[in-house]
């Protein structure tokens, strides 16, 4: 049993700061968490503008791949509710999921019910991924039901699957007001040429791609294309699916990491990602409250400038 499994699972929604602090104090996280991270003030959050309306997003979002696919296990669902509650309490906004992620959307709906609706900072993002064009409408309807939302902030086409057809469908939904923004996604560096063409030619608001301190191929063409077209960018796999920790967790964090307010590797990796001026937000996934607290540390403090970014990349490459 992990520490997070020992959390006292409240029957009531976690709606206030006191309940939250009590919860994490119960697992000994409070004493280990810098006071600045526990601030629920939104004044000091790192936000990025992503649309012509001036709307802004916190630079750290949340993914749900694997972590929120826990099926019908109520105990684990409640624990994930704590993870989501921590995310919101620490200023998080964008939550990303997909029908491809098993029960993740259903578990998110459950967690949102428990936390209390509406969550004012939630920026809901999901995907359509069926290869059968005719199933797209059905899948979109299902996602609305599972999340328990009338309107999605962002609807994306998962890994470009049947994108020509789904794009038409999503535009129709956007026109009707069921969707605010449209995006396309890819991961693991796949189909970049096609993605670039879509960025250049199609009316999309967001693009999601893999970007982290070791996987930087998108810096050459995709990120410049996104800047040129005014398309917001979500970075998935900011920890390279956890591999960055396996490779580097035992290596020392450089002393100068403190200059950019990084106390741990998670903050170091995330700040590298979100400091690229094309990146709107990164979406690390976690199943642990303590890891969520670490991730959300990157939502505050200084961001590295281009000189420091180079230093960060060089340091990681040297390890």
């Amino acid at each position, binding site marked *: 049993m992990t520490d997070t499994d020992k959390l006292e699972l409240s029957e009531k929604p976690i709606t206030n700061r006191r309940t939250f602090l009590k919860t994490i104090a119960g697992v000994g996280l409070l004493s280990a968490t810098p006071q600045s991270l526990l601030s629920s003030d939104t004044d000091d959050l790192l936000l990025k503008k992503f649309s012509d309306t001036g709307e802004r997003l916190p630079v750290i979002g949340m993914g749900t791949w694997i972590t929120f696919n*826990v099926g019908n296990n109520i105990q684990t669902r409640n624990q994930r509710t704590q993870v989501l509650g921590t995310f919101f309490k620490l200023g998080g906004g964008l939550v990303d999921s997909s029908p491809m992620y098993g029960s993740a959307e259903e578990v998110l709906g459950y967690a949102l019910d428990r936390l209390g609706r509406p969550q004012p900072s939630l920026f809901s993002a999901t995907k359509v991924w069926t290869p059968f064009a005719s199933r797209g409408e059905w899948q979109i309807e299902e996602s609305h039901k599972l999340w328990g939302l009338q309107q999605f902030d962002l609807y994306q086409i998962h890994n470009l699957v049947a994108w020509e057809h789904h794009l038409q469908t999503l535009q129709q939904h956007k026109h009707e007001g069921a969707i605010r923004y449209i995006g396309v996604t890819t991961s693991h560096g796949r189909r970049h040429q096609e993605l670039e063409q879509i960025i250049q030619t199609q009316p999309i608001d967001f693009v999601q791609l893999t970007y982290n301190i070791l996987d930087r191929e998108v810096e050459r063409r995709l990120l410049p294309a996104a800047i040129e077209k005014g398309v917001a960018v979500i970075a998935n796999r900011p920890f390279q699916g956890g591999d960055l920790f396996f490779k580097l967790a035992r290596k020392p964090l450089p002393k100068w990491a403190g200059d950019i307010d990084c106390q741990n590797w998670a903050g170091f990796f995330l700040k590298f990602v979100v400091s690229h001026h094309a990146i709107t937000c990164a979406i690390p996934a976690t199943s642990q409250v303590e890891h969520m607290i670490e991730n959300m540390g990157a939502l505050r403090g200084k961001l590295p400038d281009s000189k420091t970014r180079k230093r960060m990349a060089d340091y990681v490459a040297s390890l």
Partner: protein
Amino acid sequence: MLELLQFSLSDMVMYSRQTYIEMMGLYNQAIWPTQVPAMALALWLLYIVLNPGRQSIRVVFLGLGVAWLWSGLVFHMRHYSSINWAAPAFGYLFAVQGFLLIAVGCFPKAPVWKAPRKWLVWVNQALFIMAVLVYPLACLLEGRTPMQLELFALTPAPTLIATFALLLFVDGHWRYWLVLIPVLWSFISGSFSWELELLEAYAVFTALLVWLMNVGSEVFRLNMRKAK
């Protein structure tokens, strides 16, 4: 549809090892006390395999058919589907295999035990013992609780291994039709388990390998006989 080929195996494993094991625990709780008759069936079939008789082979086919049906209709469709959207499709595959085994068990002309070489009998019996006793207990080595174990007739892996054991032990070309779904499932479940670092991968691939080696040796002997 071809676009789905861009996804790698790790893209399709959408749950963690812990989630899978916990799902198994919830499943066992939900079906309790079905484990009791399932174990009784397992031991009965094991007794028959250790003491094969002409008519008793029907019982093994029928028992395995029920095991495939249960694993498909209850495990895959009602429980595994909570964490894997592909599980209902797996359920249909298992149901087809279950009906095929039951059909063979009910066929007027009963299948016959092969009279293979003695070492093959031992391999067959060892594989069956692995399916009903060794594999379920070995799951404890993964840190599972007794409630999270995978039992013969109730879960796919031990049912699959027992089926390979049975199909080593009978004669006739029709058995190649009966092995199509087990071979397909070996690749699916073995690959998923490999990604999740579960013992199931080793157990399933061992059973598949034993079966393939047996087929290979049969083909070799046949060719040798023709050459003479």
